[in-house]
Every structure is written in structure tokens, then in C-alpha cells.
């Protein structure tokens, strides 16, 4: 049985990962479409920039987030004053950090699946009166559901494992920002913390396996559905 602290970290991890995935989904779909279906100057550059969270170590991302979206950062001040949102040292901030780190994964998966959709179907939709956007929503989007799922799962999994950006941006405050990986870190930093660390790894892995196996099942169902099963 998980201890209360473990349960707390578990629930927090879940909350952070879910919001991180849901929050990055709309921009990921929009940008994936942009990258897959349009050509514009700076296309490759934008694509490159969007992959940077993958390349730059998470700690650096966390640091940049701290500088820009922290309580004293320009973005942080803006969000605070205009929307009353505080990201620094809150779980929302952890979700933002996770989302940014996982964004390239979601983007790639969705983009790839958009590219696999036969454009001729969109053409058919347009001759039937659907605008370009409507054709995307009613034809392309349902067809890429498996790809979107894939992207969401990747990004969810990545979020669950996110450590560096989170601890750097929002610290490791129990109940607020101390997700499973951060609790795991805390456990490994003290002598004799190994059993505790092992428990946390097992909890993480179990959670991830449930999510992955479940999503695989769901994806298969959706793929089945999208490709015309009964």
C-alpha cells in the first residue's frame, strides 16, 4: 500500500500529466496541421524550434521557464496581472513544464498521422461543401484519432517521467509540485532511501503501464473504428 505521501505524489503526477496532455493537445493539432499541410518560409525553422525541448536538457528548460514565467519573470508577471494565474511553484507550473518537454513528441505523432491521411478525402469533403477547416475537423481529425492517441500517450508518459524541468521551475513542494519523479529524487538523496525509491519506481511503472496498455487497447479500438470496423 502506498503511504499518504506516495499517494499524494501519485495523484499530483496524474493531475499534472493529464493537464499537461490536455493543454498541449489543441496547439499540437493546430501546429501539426500547419507543418503537415502547408508550406511557408520558415517552415523548417519552426519545426526545428518546436523540437528544441527534446534537445535541450530539461534542467535548462526549467531554468528558462523560471526566468521567463517565474514570479519575477516578464511572462510570469503578465500572467499574474492579466489572468491572475501563478505558475511559479504551483502544480499548474509543473503541468506547463511537462507540457513543454513533451510537446515535440505529441507534435510529431500527430503530424505524422496527418501526413498519412489521403488528401483526396479532404478534397472530396470540400466538393461536398466543407470548408478547409470543416474538412479537417470532420474528415482528417477523426481519421487521425489513433495518431492523436499515440501522441497523447507519448506525451502523458513523458510527463509522468518529467523531472529536470519541473524541479528547476517549480521546486519540489510536497502536495503542490512534488510529483513521483521528484519524490523519487528526494528518496535517493538521503542515505538509506533506496527502499522508498524502489517503491516509488514501482508505483511510477505501474501507473505508466496501466496508461500505456490501456491506451494501446483504446487506440486499437479507435483504429479499428476509424478504419471501418463494424
Amino acid at each position, binding site marked *: 500500500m502506498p503511504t499518504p505521501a506516495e499517494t499524494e505524489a501519485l495523484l499530483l503526477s496524474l493531475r499534472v500529466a493529464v493537464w499537461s496532455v490536455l493543454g498541449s493537445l489543441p496547439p499540437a493539432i493546430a501546429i501539426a496541421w500547419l507543418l503537415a499541410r502547408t508550406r511557408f518560409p520558415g517552415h523548417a525553422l519552426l519545426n526545428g524550434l518546436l523540437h528544441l525541448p527534446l534537445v535541450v536538457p530539461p534542467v535548462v528548460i526549467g531554468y528558462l521557464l523560471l526566468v521567463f514565467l517565474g514570479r519575477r519573470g516578464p511572462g510570469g508577471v503578465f500572467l499574474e496581472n492579466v489572468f491572475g494565474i501563478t505558475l511559479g511553484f504551483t502544480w499548474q507550473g509543473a503541468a506547463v513544464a511537462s507540457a513543454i518537454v513533451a510537446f515535440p513528441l505529441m507534435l510529431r505523432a500527430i503530424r505524422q498521422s496527418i501526413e498519412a491521411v489521403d488528401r*483526396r*478525402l479532404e478534397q472530396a*469533403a470540400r*466538393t461536398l*461543401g466543407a*470548408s478547409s477547416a470543416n474538412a479537417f475537423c*470532420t*474528415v482528417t481529425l477523426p481519421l487521425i484519432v489513433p495518431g492523436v492517441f499515440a501522441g497523447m500517450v507519448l506525451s502523458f508518459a513523458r510527463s509522468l517521467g518529467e523531472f529536470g524541468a519541473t524541479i528547476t521551475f517549480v521546486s519540489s513542494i510536497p502536495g503542490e509540485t512534488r510529483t513521483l519523479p521528484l519524490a523519487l529524487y528526494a528518496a535517493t538523496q538521503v542515505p538509506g532511501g533506496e527502499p522508498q525509491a524502489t517503491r516509488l519506481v514501482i508505483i511510477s511503472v505501474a501507473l505508466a503501464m496501466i496508461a500505456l496498455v490501456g491506451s494501446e487497447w483504446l487506440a486499437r479500438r479507435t483504429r479499428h473504428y*476509424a478504419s*471501418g470496423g463494424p
Partner: protein
Amino acid sequence: MIDIAFNHRQGAFSLDVRMQLPGNGVTGLFGTSGAGKSTVADVIAGLIRPDGGRIAIGERVQFDSARGVAVAPERRRIGYVFQEARLFPHMNVRTNLRFGARRRGGAGPGAFDQVVGLLGLEPLLDRRTRHLSGGEAQRVAIGRALLSDPELLIMDEPLSSLDQQRRDDVLPHLEHLAADTGIPMIYITHSIEEIIRLADHLAVMANGAVIACGPIQDVMARPDVPVLNDRRDAGTLLQTTVAGHFDEDHLSALRFGEHTLLVPRTERPKGSPLALRILARDVSLALEPPQRSSVMNVLPGRVQGIHPRGDGHVDVSIDTGQIIRARITRRSADDLSLRAGLHLYALVKSVAFAERDAFRRHAEGDH
């Protein structure tokens, strides 16, 4: 009036298309494989933006490179049945059918049921589209375009994967559609039968250009369109009136000029006009009317012209009031000493008209 003029280059293939089509009725677009027919359809529908030119349907300019006009495909109100069905794989048949109807606000529930019945889609309605057979899929695609309330319908070989029975089911609906709604239709096909059956107007393409375009009788009569004249189903169209029906014999009598023709029972009421197709191959000639023969249609006339063909056959044009063409062997022509002005009899079996595509209604736009 549909005014199409554009040039376009794709890969090694270049098109330079110029044609004017009437704003109602059906225009057949005919040509060999690779002539560019599907490309023309894509350009008209707005799916391909040509390098230059102008496309107008009635008053509406859909594309004009000079004025920078290019209407989006969804605002052209062009129903398009593609060569491949292009059904939406994530929707069942019903939802595919409703796709256009919902967006264009056209076709009420009555229309839906009518189209479903006509195309025999009832048992498929709740099926997914993936495992439909080729023919089933194409029927759904036709239904989907029909229900999208188009102002111009483009069909790219819609029947090529249907069997004869389904073709015969679908064709009348296509006819009605064109005539009853006044929606002009561009019908791309390899089948001269379908052209004859449906088209008022005919455009013939070869190598990316339109080599003939005009009313169907005119184009079919042109000796310089090889793709039409090499065919064994060459023939002429007669304008007739339904004179009466013989129900017990399953026959109808048609009149044209002085003549009466017996043909298989038609549904058209007495007095209504009917265009009748007579294939040259079905017409025999005799200098005397036959005695005690099964041939019931004996039309006296005179030879108007004799057109030798390369294959030992001659096409004889007979003036019976309207022109009938007979294709016979040169030896027969010699035996009968045919020459222009000769009086003779053209013989046509009633059964020769027992083909569903022998009859055409007179549509308003008919010539």
C-alpha cells in the same frame, strides 16, 4: 453556359482545354485513357488550380487567372463523383450520404430515401465503408454527390465498376436528375452507350486538348473524330413521337414522318416525344419489302450517301425523312448496286431496340 478555358502543365503532361458547354443537360466527356479527363474535372471542381485561364459556370466566375479569382472548391457547389469512390472510412454509409446534404442544406428526407432506394443502398446504410465491394462503394459515392445539392454535377466514370444490372438501375436516375432539376452534368466515361443514353452534348478529348465539342448528333456525325467512328456502336438518333401502345404484345408504336416503328413497350405516354437510337449495324437493306419475315420495321427511303469504310464495310445513309445509317458489307452494296438516290427499304428488328439505352427522352435542352 459553362465556359472552360485553361492551360495547365503537370509533369510531362500539358493540357490546353477550351470548351463551352450548355448550362443544362448532360455533357459527355469522352477520350482515351490518359487524355486528361480527370484532370479537367479536378480543375473545374477547384481541386487543381490551373496555370492560367478562366472558368465560369453561368454568371459565376469560378476561376480567372487574369483577375486573380479562384473560388474555393466548397463554394463552387459542384458535386463530384470521383473515379475512385473516396468514401470517408470513419463514417458508415448513412453518414457518408448525409455529409454533403448536411452542409449544403439540400435534399430533405424524401430525397434521401429516394436516392437510397434507387441505388439499392438500403442494406448498406449502417455498414462501414471499408469492406464495401468496388461497386457498392461507387454507388454510395454517387448517392453522396447527388445528395449534396450541386449546381453542376461532375461524374468521373461513375459506373465503370458497376455491373450491368446496377448500371441500368442508376442510369435512369442520372437522366432524371439532369432533366428534372436542370442541374447541368459533366459525365466522363469510356462508354459510348452511357454517352448516348445520357448526353445532349459531347466533348471529346485527346492528349490534353478538346478535339470536338458540340451537340451530340453533330459530334457523333463528324467524320474526323476517330475515337467515335471506329466504334461498332456508331449510329444515329431519330426524333419520334409515341403513337400508341400494344400492351398484350409488349410493343409500342412510334411515328416519325410517314413511318411507324414497332419497338418494345416504352413507359412514355402516347403523344410524347422520344429520341430513338438506331445502330448502323442493326439496319439491313432490301430493294423489295420482305415477305413473311420476323422483321416488323420496314422503312422505305432513298440512298443519300455511301461512305466506304476501310474494313470491307460501307455505311449507307438512308433518307427516310430523317437520316438512318446502315452498315453493310461492300459485297452486299455491290450486289444491290447501291447508288445515291436509289429507292429501297431499311429493315430493323424491333428487338434491336430492346436495349435500355436505345431510348432517350427529349429534355428541354435537346437539340
